[in-house]
């Protein structure tokens, strides 16, 4: 499932307020709130920070600090599909670095960037828990293991077809 938003600014604001209301009174609600926002919109809009801060009685700096601390959260619009290539040790032992190089070439985009057409964001992951079937990647919420360069090309073609 792709996530990037096509909502109007008003709809975005309404979505954020609904999420904030849903978590009202929950202890330690900041991460669940940020996850919900990113799951719906694909990213956390910079101008939502003050609303989140107000709802949780935090400073904007604290909220901004949390968003930027965690690798998972992003404040810019990602591609329609997010590809993560595991580059931890187990996958390295089975050619993850070469797979990353291949992916960068195939997508004409380097790690942590989005392709020019906005279809794919390429990221590195540090372990997907598929270490006995390396190398592993994920595309959105689906995982793939023992991925050869040919498998990668086929998955990209298939995913591109979905958009």
């Amino acid at each position: 499932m792709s996530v990037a938003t096509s909502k109007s600014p008003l709809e975005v604001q309404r979505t954020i307020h609904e999420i904030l209301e849903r978590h009202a009174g929950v202890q330690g609600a900041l991460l669940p709130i940020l996850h919900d926002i990113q799951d719906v919109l694909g990213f956390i809009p910079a101008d939502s920070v003050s609303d989140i801060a107000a709802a949780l009685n935090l400073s904007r700096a604290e909220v901004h600090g949390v968003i930027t601390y965690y690798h998972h959260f992003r404040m810019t619009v990602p591609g329609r599909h997010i590809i993560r290539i595991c580059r931890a040790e187990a996958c390295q032992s089975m050619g993850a670095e070469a797979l990353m190089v291949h992916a960068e070439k195939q997508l004409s985009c380097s790690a942590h960037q989005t392709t020019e057409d906005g279809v794919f964001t390429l990221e590195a992951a540090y372990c997907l828990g598929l270490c006995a079937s390396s190398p592993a990647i994920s595309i959105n919420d689906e995982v793939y293991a023992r991925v050869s360069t040919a498998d990668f090309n086929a998955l990209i073609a298939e995913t591109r077809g979905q958009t």
Partner: protein
Amino acid sequence: MSTTIYVSRDSAALAVGANRVAQKILEQAKLKNIELSLVRNSSRGMFWLEPLVEISTPLGRVAFGPVTPESVASIFEQGLGEASQHPLYLGLTEDIPFLKNQERLTFARMGITDPLSLSDYEEHGGYEGLRRALTLSGTQIVQEVLDSGLRGRGGAAFPAGIKWKTVANTPSEQRYVVCNADEGDSGTFSDRMTMEGDPFMLIEGMTIAGIATGATQGYIYVRSEYPHAIATLTEAIQIAESAGFLGRNILDSEHCFSLQVRKAAGSYVCGEETAMLESIEGRRGIVRAKPPLPAVQGLFNQPTVINNVITLASVPIIMAKGAGFYKSFGVGRSLGTLPFQLAGNIKQGGLVEKAFGLSLRDLIFKFGAGSRSGRPIKAIQVGGPLGTYIPESQWDLPLDYEAYLAIGGTLGHGGIVVHDDTADMSKLARYAMEFCALESCGKCTPCRIGSTRGVEVLDKMASNQNREQQVVLLRDLCNTMTYGSLCAMGGMTPNPVLSALNHFPKDFGLV
């Protein structure tokens, strides 16, 4: 008579096409008018055979694997019985040596049951531990866990019972149980398998921990990289709640315990217990100084039991079968079993639950059948990214906590990553520093700055800028990180770096 076919729903099976295989099986059954029920079970943990297809026969389940969608039709063609001549036929699943030679206590149900079927769970011994715990006092439960010798399976190997006792004895209105499921170590997947494959076992273990210590609220902090585990756990919690195993008056007792899943956000250091608490509380995952210990002042400043998934998942069988049974496995002070995870460049990768004490050589060759590439094995990293690279001269040591500590290593969470002779150990050493720089929380200087300096020094060594002097500098830096860091992130990053340097100096241009 209807036939039952099993196809795993574990991520590692899905990642190699288990859903497409399952779909083909249903199509074939319809086409051939065969009445069958398809069970999406947990995985046996023989990942080189996934997608594994198992068929029930009067003699037991027989297995086929690795099955592709294209090969499904031919399996049906040859008949579903146990005498199949199909090239993917593996015989009775239980007789496959990889499985047969294990000692599965915690993973006893793995690959056998439907993860979300409570009746499956109870038929296979589930909730016996909780039922017994409900007849005991909190102190008696804690004593049983103490007597079992169970030590933290997350990596630090601290006795679980002592932690529980501290929490129980700290006066407070509110106590918590937090399950650390931020399984970030490369080469480990036993937590993921447990959450996806036997979630009620973890729920039961946490409930017992709650009853033992007087905690009424639990949190499971799961990595965002594990979407399937989060979905399965969330569903399992709802099922357990509606069946009276969670919530108010558990099984009509006076005990209450509720559970929440909290999704992490991709920070490795949040696997460190105090950083995890910060994260659950809604802050940056910055490590706290200890003391106070979390058992005294933990989540929201209250006494908190923090245990890894496997530690908590080991509790139900300890309560069901008794401490004596559990500690009859293992050696020395490493009692019970450890789910070892064979990963990386290994032919038969997967989960091997064995009592402590076997050798790495047996694990890698008898279970793992050597490298997947077929090339000689050069180094084996035991215990995750902060673990030591073990050269062949040390492969015969017993796998127990103390033996590994003695060589400056760690068993960690039981992850074992195999590298063949094409591995460049200087690159792996550099990666360890790079990873530390990327994931350091930044609170203490040795870790935050030391890791970046470490990358620079290793780069200078690689390009032969005063190489001999850089080695002195690197060792000095590692010494500062080991003894000056606040937590294991900076404190143990020197393990892979120095073991690579000490055992494989050639790769660093030193002879």
